[in-house]
C-alpha cells in the first residue's frame, strides 16, 4: 500500500519534501545526531571530572566542552526535539489535518536549524568558544574565542523555532477536523499550542539580544559594556527573558507527550482535562514573568528578587496539578508496562525531583547559597533530561509504529530504559549533594573533598551512554527489520491511530469527523 514513506523515492524527495511527516523524520535525524554529539561532550566532561586535577583535558578545553555541550543540547536537541520532531509528525494527524498550515515554511524552518547548526559548529574550526551557552557579558565581549559564529548560529536556529511555533498556532486554529472543537483536542496538541506561544513571543527577544552581542563584539557599541556606560546585567535580563520561557519550550511538550502516554497505557480518559489545559496555558503565561530568578545574586534590587521569587512559586502550582492529574488518571485504569509507559513513569519520578528542587531554588536565601553550584546543574538536568529527554524517548517509542509501520523490540526497549533511568539517577543525584556542599558549576577542577561523589556521577554517565546505545541500536534495527505494526497497536483513542501505519501521504483517506471528547 502506498504510504508517505514509499510514495516518492530518492534523496531529493526527502530534502525538498513539504510533507510534515517526512520533515519530522528529517528533524529526527538531525536532533538525534546532535544528541549523540552533545552526549559525547558530556561524557568527556564527566571523564575529566572523575579525578581531582587535570586528567584528560586542560581547563581551556574543558570550558569549550561545557559550552558546546550546553549549546548543542539546548539549541539543537531539546528545543527542536519534541515540538519540531514529534510535534511535526503527530500534530496534523491528531487534529485530523492533511498537513500543517504552511508546509514550505515548515521545510524552511528545518533548513534554518541545519544552517544555524552548521554556522555554530564552524566555530569549532575557528578555535572554539568558551563562554558557556549563556554568553554572559562582558566575558563574551572580551574572550578571544569564536563567539560570533556561535551567536549567529543560535540566531538562525531561533528563526527555526519561531517559524515552527507560528506554523503550529495557525494549524491548530485553522485546520482542525470537522467537529474537533478546542476542548476536544488531545492534550499533546494543547501543549504544543502553549509551547508555540512561547516560541513566537520569546524567541525574537533572544534574536535582538544576540544581534546586540554581535554588534558589541564587532563595533563595541557599549550597550552591555560598563566601560562605555552600558550595563552588563541588562544582557542577563534580556537573555533570561527568552531563556526562562525557553525552559518551558523544552518541558511543556514533554508534559503533553506524558498525558498521551498515560491515557493510552491506562486505557482511561485523562483526569481533569480542562485543568491540564489551563495548567499548560498558565505555565506558558507565567513563564514570561519569572526570568529574574536566575539573577538573585546578580546585583538586581532586593524587591526584584522578592517579586520574582513569589511569581516563580506560582508556576509551581499548575506543575503540581499536572502531576496529580496524571496519577489520578492511573487510578482504576488498566496499566500496561510497555516501554513508552515506563518512560512516562520515569518522567513522573524524575520530574517530581526536578520539580521539588525547583521549588527549593525559588526560595531566595536557599538559592543564594546554591546558585551556580552543582545543585542547579542537577536540578536542571532532572528537569531537562528527566523531563524532555524522557518525553522525547517515550513519545518516540509510542509513535514509532505509526512512523515506520513496524514494532520495536519490547525487551530491549525496557532494558534501554532501565539503564538510562538508573544511570541518570546515579549521575545526577550525587550532584545535589555536591551542590549543597558548595561545589561551583563550570569548574574544570575541584577540591579533593568533592572527589568521591564526582566519581559516582561519572560512573552513572557511562550507564546512561550504554542505555542510549542499546535503545538507539534496537530502534534503528526495528526501523528496517521490525515486525509489521497494526494501525493501532496500543488501543489508543486519539485520531492519529485511526490512520494506517505508516499513514498515507495526506494522512487520512477520508477526512475524519470528530464527535467524541478527547480520549473518550
Amino acid at each position, binding site marked *: 500500500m502506498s504510504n508517505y514513506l514509499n510514495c516518492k523515492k530518492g534523496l531529493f524527495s526527502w530534502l525538498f519534501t513539504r510533507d510534515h511527516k517526512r520533515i519530522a523524520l528529517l528533524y529526527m535525524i538531525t536532533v538525534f545526531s546532535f544528541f549523540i554529539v552533545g552526549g559525547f561532550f558530556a561524557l568527556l566532561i564527566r571523564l575529566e571530572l572523575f579525578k581531582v586535577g587535570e586528567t584528560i583535558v586542560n581547563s581551556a578545553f574543558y570550558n569549550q566542552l561545557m559550552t558546546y555541550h550546553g549549546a548543542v543540547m539546548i539549541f539543537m536537541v531539546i528545543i527542536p526535539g519534541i515540538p519540531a520532531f514529534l510535534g511535526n509528525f503527530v500534530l496534523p494527524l491528531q487534529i485530523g*489535518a*492533511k*498537513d*500543517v*498550515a*504552511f*508546509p514550505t*515554511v515548515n521545510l524552511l524552518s528545518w533548513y534554518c536549524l541545519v544552517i544555524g547548526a552548521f554556522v555554530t559548529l564552524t566555530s569549532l574550526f575557528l578555535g572554539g568558544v568558551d563562554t558557556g551557552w549563556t554568553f554572559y557579558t562582558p566575558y563574551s565581549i572580551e574572550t578571544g574565542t569564536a563567539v560570533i559564529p556561535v551567536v549567529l548560529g543560535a540566531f538562525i536556529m531561533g528563526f527555526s523555532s*519561531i517559524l515552527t511555533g*507560528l*506554523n503550529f*498556532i*495557525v*494549524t491548530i*486554529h*485553522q*485546520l482542525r477536523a470537522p467537529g474537533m472543537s478546542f476542548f476536544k483536542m488531545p492534550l499533546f496538541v494543547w501543549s504544543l499550542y502553549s509551547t508555540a506561544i512561547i516560541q*513566537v*513571543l520569546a*524567541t*525574537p*527577544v533572544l*534574536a*535582538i*539580544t544576540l*544581534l*546586540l552581542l554581535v*554588534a*558589541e563584539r*564587532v*563595533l*563595541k*557599541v*557599549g*550597550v552591555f559594556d560598563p566601560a*562605555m*556606560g*552600558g*550595563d552588563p546585567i*541588562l544582557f542577563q535580563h*534580556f537573555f533570561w527573558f527568552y531563556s526562562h520561557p525557553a525552559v518551558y519550550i523544552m518541558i511543556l511538550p514533554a508534559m503533553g507527550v506524558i498525558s498521551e502516554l498515560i491515557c493510552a497505557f491506562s486505557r482511561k480518559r485523562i483526569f481533569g482535562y480542562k485543568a491540564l489545559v489551563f495548567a499548560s496555558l498558565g505555565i506558558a503565561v507565567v513563564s514570561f514573568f519569572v526570568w529574574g530568578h536566575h539573577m538573585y545574586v546578580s546585583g538586581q534590587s532586593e524587591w526584584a528578587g522578592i517579586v520574582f521569587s513569589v511569581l516563580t512559586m506560582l508556576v509551581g502550582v499548575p506543575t503540581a496539578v499536572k502531576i496529580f492529574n496524571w496519577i489520578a488518571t492511573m487510578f482504576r485504569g488498566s496499566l500496561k508496562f510497555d516501554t513508552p509507559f515506563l518512560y512516562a513513569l520515569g518522567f513522573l519520578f524524575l520530574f517530581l525531583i526536578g520539580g521539588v528542587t525547583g521549588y527549593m531554588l525559588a526560595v531566595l536565601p536557599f538559592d543564594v547559597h546554591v546558585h551556580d553550584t552543582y545543585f542547579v546543574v542537577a536540578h536542571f538536568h532532572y528537569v531537562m533530561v528527566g523531563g524532555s529527554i524522557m518525553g522525547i524517548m517515550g513519545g518516540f517509542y509510542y509513535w514509532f509504529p505509526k512512523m515506520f509501520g513496524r514494532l520495536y523490540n519490547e525487551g530491549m526497549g525496557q532494558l534501554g530504559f532501565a539503564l538510562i533511568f538508573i544511570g541518570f539517577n546515579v549521575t545526577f543525584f550525587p550532584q545535589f549533594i555536591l551542590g549543597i556542599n558548595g561545589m561551583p558549576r563550570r569548574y574544570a577542577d575541584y577540591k579533593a573533598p568533592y572527589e568521591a561523589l564526582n566519581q559516582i556521577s561519572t560512573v552513572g554517565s557511562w550507564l546512561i551512554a550504554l542505555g542510549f546505545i542499546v535503545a538507539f541500536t534496537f530502534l534503528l534495527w526495528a526501523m528496517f527489520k521490525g515486525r509489521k505494526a497494526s494501525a493501532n497497536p496500543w488501543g489508543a483513542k486519539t485520531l492519529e491511530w485511526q490512520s494506517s501505519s505508516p499513514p498515507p501521504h*495526506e494522512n487520512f483517506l477520508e477526512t475524519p469527523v470528530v464527535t467524541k471528547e478527547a480520549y473518550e
Partner: protein
Amino acid sequence: MKDNKNLAHHFNSYKDQIRAEKIGMWLFLATEILMFGGLFVGYTIYHAEYTKVFKVGAEFLNWKKGAINTVVLLFSSWTMVMSIYYAQKDQIKKCQMMLGTTLVCGFLFMFIKYLEYSHKFHEGIFPGIYFSYTGSAFVEDLPLYFSFYYLMTGLHASHVFIGMALIFWMLIKTYKKQINSSHYMPLEYVGLFWHLVDLIWIFLFPLLYLVE
C-alpha cells in the same frame, strides 16, 4: 472557489487558506515588534539613566530630514494601500503605478538616510569603538546614544530594504499577471509588512530626533 489554482492541497477552501495566511502574517508581525521591542526597552532604560546625554545626542540630528522621511514613509503607506485597492478592482496599470511610487518612496527614504549617515561619518560620529568625534558638543557617554541611533535606525533600514525587495517582487508579479481581483493576497501581506516598517519609524523619529 474549489478549483482556484492558488489553493493549497491541505485547505478545504480558499477562504480558509486566506484566513490561515492572515493569522500567520500577524503572528510574524508580532515577532518583529518584539524584536524591535528589545531595542526600545534598552533605549528607555538608558534614556532614563543618561537623559542629558541623549538630549545632546538628539541635537546632532537634523530633525527636518527626519520629518521629511516620516512624511515620505507615511505617503508610501498610502500608495501601498491604493495599490491593493486597484488590484482588487483589476486596474492593474494603476496598481503598478502605486507600487512603483511606493518603491520610489523607499529609495527616497534610503537616500535621505544615506545623507544623514554620511554627514555623521564626516564629523567622526561612527558607531561604538570607531567613534572619533571630539568637537565642542562632546559629552561623556555620547557614543552610547549613537550606538542606539545606529542600531535602531540600522535595523529599521534593513527592514525598509527587505520591504523594497518585496515590493519589487510584487511589481514583477503584476507584470506576470499573477495579481488580480481574485488573487491579491500576497500584495496585502507585503502591505502589512510595509505598514509595520512605517509604524516603527513613527516611534523611532520622536525617540531619536525630538527627545527632550
